[in-house]
């Protein structure tokens, strides 16, 4: 065992120092030959015969050299490298063919890589925290992931299976004051050029920032520290504590130009002063799907909004609950404990509105992910899209296979000669496949670069088209998983487009191939059939894709032009986000009256009518104001 390990090391060494070993062997063989000649002379042979006999006794030098190389080195790798070498030479010799085939494959592989990168970034991304495998989300068997704060607090204080149970509330938009106004950034264009209207704040609006409320132990339980300053301290989630906030690195960079003086500064959020205590790490989105602008303790968030006091209301859901499993606990144990705690709560606070089935509602732990618990519908959509781009790759492979078939007809003489001088069919197929693999890998490299660039542009466009308070768009970059997927694709493409032509090309058909006139019509019965089959399949797949793409484009076009039944062009929406006190009904009426008066004065001859409605469930005010003939 030990010997064979040492031998392996020696073989690898010899493989990389092949030239040195060859020179030493040559020297040895030279001396050997000379000694043989000397001995033969001593035995009385004539000089010429002595030399001849010596060569016979030693054996063929080339054979010895090759056998030596095989014995001491890594013969499989050696022939593979030879194949790669030959493949590169063959590809260089046909630049036109190489370019077209590589581009075709690069398109197929690039599209697939792009879609998979996006899927990977959205659905397969782990939470950016140490040991994400021990993080779980607590949901119920009814798939309802929301808990009220008092319920959450009860679980948090009584659980033993979790080293930390933390909550992530809803996102909301707050108006930002107390910071210098920011110049409006240039906005993106592709989406608006395509006719997509996305809600953008009009000039003159107050500045909006997106905030996510979390429990005070959120960062501690995740094991994530602040990039600057500190995270939340225990007690900052209680009602009387000072109002604090964390700024995301991305917002700190884009809005505050990475000003380290921001720590300790007071920002006015919805008119409430909040102290910035820290900056979260770059791109940190925690359990949230996108990077928010601000992180607030749940209590601070509820103080800023007009939602009342959800922290003490057992009937109002406020947050999703996540946990980090304790070292000595597993998901089963944690689930059982949560069920027991849930039953205790049910006994202590029987809910009037709870349906009779609530006894059977059980807790379910799923691996925590920014994209939420696994969703079979989303997975089905992802599989559908991946399948669609898979078809694109299939078409690319079929195209390249046709090209290879056409080329193998031209190469038939070369292949026939190699078969005739003793190459085995397996060896030939391996060599042809190596050629394809080299091509596929080139295509994969091009595809990865293209997909990465296009995705970057796309994400920039998306994040610029969205209001910035929706949160930063995801950063997408190819990681190990994406590269692995691309490698898998290129191997699939190699076999997919190369195997049939290689089998076809290496079919021993010496007599007709070696004769020139036969070569042109060689295998005339078989090849056209394979080609016909491929063309047919290609047209079928193309048609299916074209129909799907056409329908998708037409549907989006229709959706953009759908008749809403009213003229929305001159309607603006005013949104107030403020604290509960400021949004008391009397205030709202006053605001509305004053607004109408101002509008009437501003446009004396034109009617401005205002309509006021309550937003669902909350007390935030929305006005839609019709401005005819604007």
């Amino acid at each position: 065992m030990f010997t064979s390990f040492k031998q392996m090391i020696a073989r690898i060494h010899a493989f990389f120092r092949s030239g040195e070993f060859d020179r030493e062997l040559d020297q040895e063989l030279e001396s050997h030959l000379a000694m043989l000649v000397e001995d033969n002379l001593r035995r009385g042979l004539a000089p010429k015969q002595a030399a001849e006999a010596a060569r016979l006794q030693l054996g063929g030098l080339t054979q010895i050299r090759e056998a030596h190389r095989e014995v001491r080195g890594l013969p499989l790798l050696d022939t593979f490298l030879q194949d790669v070498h030959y493949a590169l030479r063959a590809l260089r010799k046909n630049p036109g063919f190489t370019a077209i085939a590589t581009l075709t494959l690069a398109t197929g592989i690039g599209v697939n890589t792009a879609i998979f990168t996006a899927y990977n970034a959205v659905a397969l991304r782990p939470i950016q925290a140490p040991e994400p495998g021990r993080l779980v989300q607590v949901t119920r068997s009814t798939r309802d992931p929301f808990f009220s704060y008092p319920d959450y607090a009860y679980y948090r204080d009584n659980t033993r299976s979790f080293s930390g149970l933390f909550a992530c509330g809803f996102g909301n938009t707050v108006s930002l004051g107390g910071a210098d106004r920011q110049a409006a950034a240039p906005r993106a264009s592709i989406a608006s050029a395509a006719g997509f209207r996305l809600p953008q704040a009009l000039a003159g609006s107050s500045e909006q920032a997106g905030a996510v409320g979390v429990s005070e132990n959120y960062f501690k339980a995740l094991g994530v520290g602040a990039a600057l300053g500190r995270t939340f301290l225990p007690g900052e989630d209680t009602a009387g504590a000072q109002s604090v906030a964390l700024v995301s690195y991305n917002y700190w960079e884009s809005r505050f130009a990475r000003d380290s003086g921001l720590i300790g500064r007071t920002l006015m959020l919805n008119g409430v002063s909040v102290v910035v205590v820290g900056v979260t790490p770059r791109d940190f989105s925690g359990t949230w799907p996108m990077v928010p602008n601000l992180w607030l303790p749940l209590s601070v968030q509820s103080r800023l909004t007009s939602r009342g006091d959800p922290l003490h209301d057992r009937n109002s859901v406020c947050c999703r609950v996540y946990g980090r499993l304790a070292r000595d606990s597993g998901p089963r144990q944690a689930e059982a404990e949560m069920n027991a705690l849930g039953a205790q709560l049910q006994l202590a606070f029987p809910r009037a509105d709870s349906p009779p089935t609530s006894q059977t509602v059980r807790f379910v732990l799923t691996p925590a992910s920014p994209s939420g618990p696994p969703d079979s519908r989303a997975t089905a959509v992802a599989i559908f899209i991946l399948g669609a781009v898979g078809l694109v790759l299939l078409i690319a492979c079929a195209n390249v296979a046709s090209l290879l078939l056409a080329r193998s007809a031209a190469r038939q003489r070369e292949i026939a000669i190699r078969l005739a001088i003793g190459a085995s069919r397996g060896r030939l197929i391996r060599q042809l496949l190596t050629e394809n693999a080299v091509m596929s890998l080139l295509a994969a490299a091009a595809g990865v670069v293209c997909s990465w660039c296009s995705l970057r542009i796309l994400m920039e466009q998306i994040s610029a088209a969205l209001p910035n308070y929706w949160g930063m768009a995801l950063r997408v970059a190819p990681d190990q998983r994406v590269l692995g997927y691309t490698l898998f694709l290129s191997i699939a493409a190699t076999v997919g487009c190369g195997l049939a032509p290689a089998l076809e090309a290496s079919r021993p058909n010496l007599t007709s191939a070696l004769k020139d006139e036969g070569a042109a019509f060689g295998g005339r019965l078989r090849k056209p059939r394979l080609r016909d089959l491929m063309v047919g399949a290609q047209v079928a797949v193309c048609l299916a894709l074209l129909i799907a793409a056409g329908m998708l484009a037409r549907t989006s076009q229709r959706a953009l032009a759908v008749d809403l039944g009213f003229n929305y062009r001159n309607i603006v929406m005013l949104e107030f986000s403020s604290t509960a006190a400021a949004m008391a009904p009397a205030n709202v009426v006053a605001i509305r009256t004053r607004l109408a008066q101002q509008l009437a004065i501003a446009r004396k001859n034109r009617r401005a009518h205002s309509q006021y409605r309550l937003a669902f469930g909350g007390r935030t005010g929305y006005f839609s104001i019709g401005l005819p003939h604007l």
Partner: protein
Amino acid sequence: MTENKSEILQGTLDLMVLKTLEAMGPLHGYGIARRIEQFSEAALRVNQGTIYLCLIRLVQKRWISPAWGTSENNRKAKFYSITKAGRKQLAAEAENWERVSGVISRMLELAAGS
């Protein structure tokens, strides 16, 4: 050079080379080849070049170690000498060989007697 023949020879050749080096001390490739030819009384006719395939294998297994030197005729040559691991291997192989050859010869005697 067929595959089968060299496979059969490989083990025997290893053993012969090791034994030669143990008995004679450091030798170059030509010396080893000649010694084996003398002992086998031309019963084993191999291309002398084959000895180098055997030698590199034994070197890689660290059973023998090479060193450049000068031959009796003032020629540059690589001299091989047996290592400690090589001696151990030789002892084990020799014992094994004796056992097997003992069994074979007893079998042959039995066949002749019956």
